[in-house]
């Protein structure tokens, strides 16, 4: 019984990380219909910015949690305004190629500035501690990850469904011309959405730094996981991302315990099963 609870907890923490990484990706796709390949590269930028900040803050993560999303918000806004908007008229392939190229450029810039080797990112203080839960030692940071994920999820749901901005956003997705004629600056709205997605990826990078490894391959490593989450959950569905993150997190955790030989393939088996039963993903809308 105890063991099941511990592995459930492991699954929750990993699910939290998966959700943080995929939330921005699915938001941008759902609102703008852009599959942002540079998402993971922005996540990496967040982690590297955080490294440079934490180095000067003796390992405190709080400043990074505020500064990095803001920095990524600005970068995201600039990318949307000056690059993405220009290629928008040329269709999805052009947008895909643009974000693909951006991912490469960002990765090379990171290598050039920070070096092509892993960097040490360790939190200090309260977050570095442990608590005793059910007779085992559990790192507070893992609980912190899960709480951050809940915070981000609730924040997004609140904005989308409980504010005027959320109403405009959802309306703009459905019928941008009508919303435009009502006096709303739709291009500005979309710029905000893309920038917010970038900020979310930066936030995820800050959170991931102390748990994983901060190195130039980290973007490539996480991109596949993020895609699996949004494919399983349904492209563009926030609720889908929540459910898919939890499913994959717990599947990985219990899979390692129960079917260790399959752990390498479990995530993909789930994705294949979902695609067979419901090709649009668990919560995806039929196109």
């Amino acid at each position, binding site marked *: 019984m105890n063991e099941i609870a511990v*592995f459930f907890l*492991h699954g929750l923490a990993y699910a939290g990380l998966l959700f943080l990484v995929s939330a921005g990706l699915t938001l941008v796709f759902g609102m703008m219909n852009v599959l942002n390949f540079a998402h993971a590269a922005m996540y990496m930028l967040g982690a590297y910015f955080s490294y440079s900040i934490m180095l000067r803050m003796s390992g405190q993560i709080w400043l990074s949690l505020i500064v990095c999303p803001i920095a990524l918000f600005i970068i995201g806004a600039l990318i949307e305004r000056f690059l993405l908007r220009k290629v928008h008229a040329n269709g999805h392939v052009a947008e895909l190629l643009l974000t693909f190229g951006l991912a490469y450029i960002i990765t090379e810039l990171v290598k050039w500035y920070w070096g092509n080797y*892993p*960097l*040490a990112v360790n939190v200090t203080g309260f977050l570095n501690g442990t608590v005793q839960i059910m007779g085992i030692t559990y790192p507070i940071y893992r609980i912190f990850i899960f709480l951050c994920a809940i915070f981000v999820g609730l924040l997004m749901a609140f904005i989308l469904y409980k504010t005027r901005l959320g109403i405009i956003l959802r309306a703009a997705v459905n019928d941008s011309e009508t919303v435009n004629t009502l006096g709303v600056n739709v291009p500005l709205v979309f710029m905000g959405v893309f920038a917010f997605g970038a900020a979310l990826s930066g936030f995820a990078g800050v959170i991931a730094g102390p748990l994983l490894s901060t190195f130039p391959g980290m973007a490539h490593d996480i991109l596949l*996981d993020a895609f699996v989450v949004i494919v399983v959950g349904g492209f563009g569905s926030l609720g889908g991302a929540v459910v898919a993150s939890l499913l994959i997190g717990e599947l990985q955790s*219990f899979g390692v315990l129960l079917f260790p030989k399959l752990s390498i393939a479990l995530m993909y088996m789930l994705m294949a099963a979902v695609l067979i039963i419901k090709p649009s993903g668990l919560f995806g809308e039929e196109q």
Partner: protein
Amino acid sequence: MKRSIIKSLCFLSAVLILSLPLYAAAADTIKIGATEPLSGTFKDIGERYLDGVVYAAKVINAKGGLLGKKVEVVPIDSELKPDVATRKAQNLIMKDDVRFFCGGTGSSVGAAMSQLAERENVIMYTYGMAAATMTGAKCNRNFFRPCANTDQQSYALAELIARKGYGKVAIIAQDYSFGQEALAAFKKKLAQANPSAKIVAELYHPAGTKDYAPYISQIIAAKPDVIFTPNWGNDLTILLKQGRPMGMSQKIFSYYINDEVTIQALGDDSLMIGNMGAEVYTLSIPTKKNEEFVASFYKDMGYYPTWLRGKAYVATMFWAEAVKKAGTTDVDAVIKAWEGLTYDGPAGLWTMRACDHQAQMPLWYTEIVAKTKFFDHAFEAPAGMAEAKDVSVPCAETGCIMKKK
């Protein structure tokens, strides 16, 4: 005007192309092509290996060269791709008549280079590619391994754990051929060296795993005395980074524990102190020859010949001994001279076994301690050695059938 510029450019490039083979034939050098990943994710590893080869050439040249000729190292960026490495090597063989190749990164690159060496009758030696099959079932007379393979390294660590009397061992490895081979060899040797020792947990995880918590919980639940892992890179750092806070406090015995970049990447010495490793070359080998080598390297370069650099250096000096003994750069003569040759260098007495071209040498144990004279961060201290015979795999068990020419 434009036309004449194009004309002169054409002429210039024609001259350059024509002069290339002439230059190569005229140059009185012995060339070694060093295949390393010099771009991409593993650039850092490749550059440190290359550094060791280049330094060996420098030392040889400072003493009047090899057979009176200068040794010249030709870096080949393998990009860690077998086809890229062999294509570039093939070019060097045809254009510059390069007969000697070496490399340390990627057993897949090594296997392809080994085949190329056999086909073109050149020599390939490795100071880092560890897959046992390369001097086992897939051995050939043109491939030499002056470094340890997975069998020897796992044997050395199993021997160490047995010597220290640990009874319960947890083992964890990446779920692919390297990890599986390393654990298989470890289990085989531990059963011989200490039959009462028990493997209390045997775990395999996908390479590049991000969340180790489910594995760490299983290790902790098995209550081992120590942990053995051949993990490297992020799979080693994240295991430690996530495992220690969860209470996985056991000593870790690992192939690559003394990598200074890994230790720095952890950024927290307390995660590392007490862990142990075994290598054919470590910076801290307590022999007079090594101390002299480290001192002169540091004087010349301003930094230390840590394991990767040292391994490449010792292996290349060993190769040079073989060429010296042969008295010629003729490939068949060098192969014959290297078989059975011994070399007494910074890392002790090395012998190139004729039956499989796998060098037999001692492995040096290290333990990570808080303070050393080398770095500000935690680093290795010497912790004894395993004799060559303790870690040797008998010729008959390697699966190598060496074809004679």
